[in-house]
């Protein structure tokens, strides 16, 4: 039932513009993989290629050993959940859910039974006879989900399914989607631009940019060990500081930033450090120290904002504009000279691109 999806060397064009470049991605059986990126990054194009609404210029798509590349959309047997739900406005909720079964030649009584059972699972049994026009956004999305699940597809795909719902419902729905997906063990591809959403429900996430995958890994790795500056910025590393090594002493490395400030970094805590590198730190990973002489980057504090768990400072340093967090117990005024100390566990080392 559940099957792995393999996308190999996929290239696609809109007219003469290349929108996808030699993209490869494999999704293991039963895994939920998100394609995450800003609009125009190629995530929706990838989904539409797999669904069969677009033809690739090169590359192959295989689902459980079955080559889908040349197959028309209606023969691919993929459950799709659309951003705008795409319910059939002229059919009742029950007939919407039964539509795919009807195409598969499932007879009336059996079809109704299975559609009702699926509606039961998404909690809409009482709305079976309504038209989609009479449903709320969340209800429509449940119908769309039920409609895609009831055909028991070997692959489920979601195209920004929650972006039209309000924030609270979005969180509830994503839990629900993940539970249904887990229970069925269906291989799934989930397209979204919402990082929190992608990270919270996925086994693995592919961060996309300009038609390529920038990094494909588990949310934990992406969050803590981004592979490059793009991903680092994407997952919220506010500070990217270019540095070069000036001295090595066993596991400790002395590195210098622009403006001459030096830091001593531990390779035991941060992994191997090349001669030239970028130090990526979240605001949380740069501690503000009142002691201007501490072993950090000297900076002048600017605007202070209150985050609830900490104060955040916009800082000016010889290495450039930096964002750092300071303790609530010691609010500091703008203009104060301070030292920004990297917290090794919250920082990571990136190669120079």
């Amino acid at each position: 039932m559940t099957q792995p999806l393999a996308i190999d060397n996929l290239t696609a064009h809109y007219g003469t513009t290349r929108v996808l470049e030699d993209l490869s991605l494999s999704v293991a059986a039963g895994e939920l993989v998100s394609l995450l990126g800003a609009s125009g990054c190629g995530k929706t194009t990838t989904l539409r290629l797999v669904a069969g609404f677009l033809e690739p210029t090169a590359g192959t798509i295989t689902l459980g050993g079955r080559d889908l590349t040349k197959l028309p959309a209606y023969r691919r047997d993929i459950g799709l959940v659309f951003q705008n739900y795409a319910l059939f406005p002229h059919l009742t909720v029950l007939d919407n859910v039964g539509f795919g079964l009807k195409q598969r030649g499932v007879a009336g009584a059996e079809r109704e039974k299975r559609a009702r059972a699926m509606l039961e699972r998404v909690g809409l049994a009482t709305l079976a006879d309504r038209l989609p026009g009479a449903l709320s956004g969340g209800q429509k999305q449940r119908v769309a989900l039920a409609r895609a699940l009831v055909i028991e597809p070997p692959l489920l795909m979601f195209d920004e399914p929650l972006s039209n719902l309000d924030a609270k419902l979005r969180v509830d729905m994503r839990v629900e989607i993940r539970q249904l997906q887990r229970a069925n063990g269906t291989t799934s591809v989930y397209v979204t631009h919402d990082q929190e959403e992608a990270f919270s429900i996925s086994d693995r996430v592919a961060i996309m940019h300009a038609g390529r995958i920038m990094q494909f890994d588990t949310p934990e790795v992406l969050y803590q060990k981004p592979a490059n500056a793009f991903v680092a910025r994407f997952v919220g590393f506010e500070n990217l500081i270019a540095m070069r090594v000036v001295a090595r002493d066993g596991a400790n490395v002395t590195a210098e930033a622009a403006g001459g400030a030096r830091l001593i970094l531990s390779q035991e805590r941060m992994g191997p450090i090349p001669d030239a590198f970028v130090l990526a730190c979240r605001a949380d990973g740069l501690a503000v120290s009142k002691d201007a002489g501490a072993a950090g980057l000297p900076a002048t504090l600017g605007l202070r904002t209150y985050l609830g768990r900490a104060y955040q400072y916009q800082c000016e340093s010889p290495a450039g504009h930096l964002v750092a967090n300071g303790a609530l117990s010691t609010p500091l005024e703008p203009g104060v000279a301070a030292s920004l100390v990297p917290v090794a566990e919250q920082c990571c080392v990136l190669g120079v691109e």
Partner: protein
Amino acid sequence: MLKRFAGWTLAAPATLVVAVFLILPVAATIATTFAEPGGVFSPYIAFFNSGFRRNVLWRTLQISLATTAISLVIGFFAAYVVARAPGRLKSILIIAAVFPLLTGVVVRSFAWLIILGKNGILNNTLTGLGLIAEPLSMLYTQGAVIVAMVYLFVPLMILTLVGVLENIPEDVIQASSSLGASPAATFRQVIFPLAVPGLIVGAVLVFTGSFTAYATPQLLGGERQMVMGTLMYQRAMVAFDWVGASTIAAIMVVITITVVLAMSRVARRLNPMAT
């Protein structure tokens, strides 16, 4: 406060124009048919007692229903292709459908006079090919009127239905095929049902237009294929039977307005996208 009446003040001139020059005169026309010395309904009794006039009404209904049915079929399939055509070609096809609409009814009916006449193009071609020995008399037949009316209304139907078909969201059609419906099944189970309200609107436009037409039946049907419009003109301007003409006018108004109201109610009920 002036503001409370601002809406009415702005709408007043147009409202007055319609009330004074449309509603009152048309109401007066209808009213005169009920003020005959012979009795309230006497002009209508006279109309329906005349075999000739009953025939004209029946013929008009036949012609307009045939025109509507043929235009619907032609318009729907052509509109389906136009709506799915790629960008540039689509604009060309839409403009090609708009152009005949810019050309008046008289010109477009006159074209068929050249085509269908005794020495017209069709007869010349057919005799030239040796398919017929003698020219056929195609003018002044019900068929000639229907062909010309279909010609008149197909562009309108295509434009109406292209709009309707384009309003069907692309992702609904994609949802259908992702659920396993073949293109033919998608057409039957999704596209056609969603186009039905639009088809009704188009049908109403064509029916009312052809039911009350004058120039086309006059040119291509003449005296032999008299319809409600031409009969009304003949009663009013040749026979100076203004009561008779008013009676025909009243029957036309009642039939068109009934059809419009009834069908727009049906269309609204069938329109699932209304909410």
